[in-house]
């Protein structure tokens, strides 16, 4: 019952914003056509004013993070009492659904103005250190929530997707009931709690708490199958690489605190106001270098969490975790935290001359690099992981080219379709005993019982590839591309992203054409054997296959005992909802703000698009804002066609190479082309050997240093200490023979001593 209620809530909540915003579509469509520059300046001045004065939020908003925490506690209690049912899943879905409902309420109230945008709801005082008189000499980090439309945007898809994926996982993880099920859900809830803290925290330290909290949950969930050394390693890698980023974030936080005297957003934004004014007036010299340094440091944290160059290496490995985790944490929500951070601290980023270009270039290069790697992989989940990295790169590039709306919109759409892609892959993995190699699967979509998965996959792929017009991915990606080409300094970024778009379309449909259509073929993965005796493996596929014996077609004689088991209702339902949602969010492009619903939200938040104008104004020292064009056409409009064509080409290439005339699972026409690119394909498949490079230049030297230090510690540091002990010991032991117990020795030394003594006396006496 509880589940049905939750489900209806979800459906209602998904539908309502679209419906609500559809009404105001006309108004915003009008504003969309209006000129940009002048309006943006006006926006900026107005919005920054608004940011500076937060209202007081109602306390019930605290329920949003608290409910997942309750879910965590309940799941942990389930674990403590060794519950051997799916109880934790239902509790989780209940808690997260409730949290989503509250979020929705928050959104509605914020959008209707009942809650001030922004506003702060303070829970309790977490850390407060004062070292002098007045607030200037103190650091206050309350457990408080900062509510603005950006928060709403993020929390909506975080809690919404978490609820859905929690539901999905109830079936997906069913094999672990009584074993790791509670653990999974505990970490899952804790993740949502941490993510809420990250997104909703009213100060950077609370964001940092969420930041590290999601890192922990990511660690725990990647290493969920802890008996696999690779999973443990992947979890460790994720945590440590993220910690490097966290260090940057922490230092940025400290620098913020030192410079602004506070880490609360409201205070920071208020104090940044003079700088923003200086920027808009072109007085760049009034902005001290320290302010320009802050975003650079924060950026490092963002790059770590959102898997950007050079810290992206953990994300592909993170696919060792259960697929729901990959979908939620490593595709939809956690990895967008970096985007969130940049968006949240956008005023600070605007103040730096270098920060946003760095963000843009990093994003673009990451997008391209990850796409090239993704093209050459065979593990479909890994391809999705690289595509995530690539799409995150898009988002950063979007932020960097000053289209925070585009970035946020892409985050939003990406969350849905990428989650769906992962969940589809997860379903395949689930059904084929962990098989993820696209050379060993074919025609899955047409197998009985796999129709929903096939469709969902197709929808996801279309979105990811940016299939024109009908997919949300197309619209969001288009916004970023348009933004890039519209910015005269960022045209190169635009070209990189455009190429990447083509590559994306290609590798996405490479997966689809190889796995979901074509001749039916499969080889089951090794998990059916590997985890057979394992408490935590999902070996139930095996049993299930036996139960349905005879009903399903055999894929392969060699695996006569294996039957892929099609997903059940929970998985199918979730996939269906997401597929619908992925299309539905297209509507958001045309409702709400001047560039859609998301832009409406963004413009009322700290990730204010108005900065664009100010920045441009500053760049041209108060002169005319040069609006770049794409070969003479308006960049945004041109991109609608160009990106669509590029996406189409990519899909077409994939069709020719991987579908047309393919008769086996393992071979395709693309193989014939491999010699043409020489070693490039091999290098790409080897991920450009970045892991090996990092290993060689960072890990190995550190390890050597550690061993050397250890040796130094034993030999020198401790050696010196031991030397101090050794000197008396040596003296003693070298004198010991003199204490031989033989009378003569004593007598001799006595006589000698007496002789010397008397000699001294004689010589002194003179």
């Amino acid at each position, binding site marked *: 019952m509880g589940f049905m209620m939750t489900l209806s809530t979800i459906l209602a909540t998904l539908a309502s914003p679209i419906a609500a915003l559809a009404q105001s579509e006309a108004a915003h469509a009008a504003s969309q056509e209006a000129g940009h520059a002048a309006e943006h300046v006006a926006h900026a001045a107005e919005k920054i004013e608004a940011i500076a004065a937060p209202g007081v939020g109602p306390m019930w908003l605290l329920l949003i993070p608290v409910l997942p925490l309750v879910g965590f506690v309940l799941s942990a209690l389930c674990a403590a009492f060794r519950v051997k049912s799916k109880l934790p899943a239902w509790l989780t879905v209940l808690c997260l659904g409730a949290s989503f409902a509250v979020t929705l309420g928050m959104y509605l109230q914020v959008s209707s103005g009942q809650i001030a945008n922004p506003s702060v709801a303070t829970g309790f005082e977490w850390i407060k250190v004062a070292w002098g008189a007045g607030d200037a000499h103190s650091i206050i980090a309350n457990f408080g929530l900062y509510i603005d439309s950006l928060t709403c945007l993020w929390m909506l898809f975080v809690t919404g997707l978490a609820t859905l994926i929690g539901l999905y996982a109830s079936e997906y993880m069913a094999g672990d009931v009584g074993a790791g099920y509670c653990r999974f859900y505990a970490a899952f809830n804790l993740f949502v709690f941490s993510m809420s803290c990250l997104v909703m925290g009213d100060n950077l330290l609370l964001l940092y708490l969420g930041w590290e909290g999601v890192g922990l949950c990511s660690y725990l969930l990647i290493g969920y199958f802890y008996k696999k050394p690779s999973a443990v390693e992947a979890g460790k890698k994720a945590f440590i690489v993220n910690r490097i980023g966290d260090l940057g974030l922490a230092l940025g936080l400290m620098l913020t605190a030192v410079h602004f005297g506070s880490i609360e957003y409201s205070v920071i934004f208020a104090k940044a106001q003079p700088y923003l004014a200086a920027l808009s007036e072109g007085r760049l010299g009034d902005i001290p270098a320290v302010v320009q340094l802050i975003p650079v440091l924060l950026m490092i944290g963002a790059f770590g969490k959102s898997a950007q160059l050079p810290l992206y290496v953990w994300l592909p490995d993170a696919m060792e975790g259960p697929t729901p985790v990959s979908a939620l944490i490593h595709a939809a929500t956690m990895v967008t935290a970096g985007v969130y951070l940049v968006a949240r601290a956008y005023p600070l980023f605007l103040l730096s001359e270098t920060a946003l270009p760095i963000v843009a270039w990093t994003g673009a290069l990451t997008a391209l690099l990850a796409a090239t790697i993704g093209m050459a992989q065979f593990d479909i989940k890994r391809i999705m992981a690289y595509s995530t990295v690539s799409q995150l790169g898009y988002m950063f590039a979007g932020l960097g080219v000053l289209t925070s709306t585009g970035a946020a919109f892409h985050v939003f759409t990406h969350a849905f379709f990428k989650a769906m892609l992962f969940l589809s892959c997860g379903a395949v993995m689930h059904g084929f005993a962990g098989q993820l190699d696209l050379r060993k699967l074919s025609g899955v979509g047409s197998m009985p019982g796999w129709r929903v998965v096939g469709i969902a996959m197709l929808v996801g792929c279309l979105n990811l590839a940016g299939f024109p017009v009908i997919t949300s991915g197309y619209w969001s990606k288009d916004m970023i591309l348009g933004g890039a080409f519209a910015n005269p300094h960022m045209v190169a970024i635009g070209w990189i992203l455009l190429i990447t778009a083509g590559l994306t379309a290609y590798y996405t449909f490479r997966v689809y054409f190889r796995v979901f259509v074509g001749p039916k073929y499969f080889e089951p993965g090794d998990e059916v054997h590997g985890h057979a005796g394992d408490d935590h493996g999902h070996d139930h596929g095996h049993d299930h296959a036996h139960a349905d014996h005879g009903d399903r077609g055999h894929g392969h004689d060699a695996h006569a005992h294996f039957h892929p088991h099609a997903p059940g209702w929970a998985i199918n339902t979730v996939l269906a909802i997401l597929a619908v949602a992925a299309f539905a969010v297209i509507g958001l492009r045309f409702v709400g703000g001047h560039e859609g619903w998301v832009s409406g939200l963004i413009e009322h938040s700290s990730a204010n698009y108005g900065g664009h104008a100010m920045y441009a104004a500053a760049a041209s020292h108060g002169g005319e804002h040069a609006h770049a064009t794409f070969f003479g056409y308006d960049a945004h409009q041109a991109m609608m066609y160009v990106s669509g064509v590029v996406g189409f080409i990519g899909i077409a290439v994939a069709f020719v190479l991987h579908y047309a005339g393919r008769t086996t699972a393992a071979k395709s026409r693309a193989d014939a082309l491999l010699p043409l690119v020489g070693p490039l394909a091999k290098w790409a498949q080897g991920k450009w050997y970045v892991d090996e490079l990092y290993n060689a230049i960072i890990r190995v030297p550190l390890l050597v240093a550690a061993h050397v230090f250890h040796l130094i510690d034993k030999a020198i540091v401790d050696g010196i200490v031991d030397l101090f002990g050794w000197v008396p010991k040596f003296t003693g032991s070298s004198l*010991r*023979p003199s*204490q*031989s*117990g*033989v*009378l*003569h020795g004593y*007598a*001799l030394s006595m*006589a000698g001593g007496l002789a010397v003594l008397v000699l001294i006396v004689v010589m002194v006496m003179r």
Partner: protein
Amino acid sequence: MNMLASIPGVLDAAVLAQASAPAPMAQSQLAHYMFISAALFAIGLIGFLTRRNLIIMFLCTELMFQAAGVALIAFSRFHMNMTGQTFVIFILTVAAAEAAMALALVVLLFRRRESLNAEEFSEMKG
């Protein structure tokens, strides 16, 4: 005394003259005795240090006692003070006591080890 005195020329001049009217003793004469004393002492010491027979070692200590005795008596004569001689009496006493004890010990130790080698009576590892 008388017997010694009857030996012609031995003691008459020196001893009896001194006994009747002790003449002051020259520093240089004292020096002679001191040298003899020191030499005796050194020889006794060297014997003590080099000889390994317990009995001879004890003999050497007696030798050093002799040296001390000579020095004491020489000083006693030089200063015309009997205390030096008195001390030689005590030396004799101690020497006798020492001899008694030491020889008893030697006997005891000899019974244990069938040897008089001083180096054998050591329990230490060195």
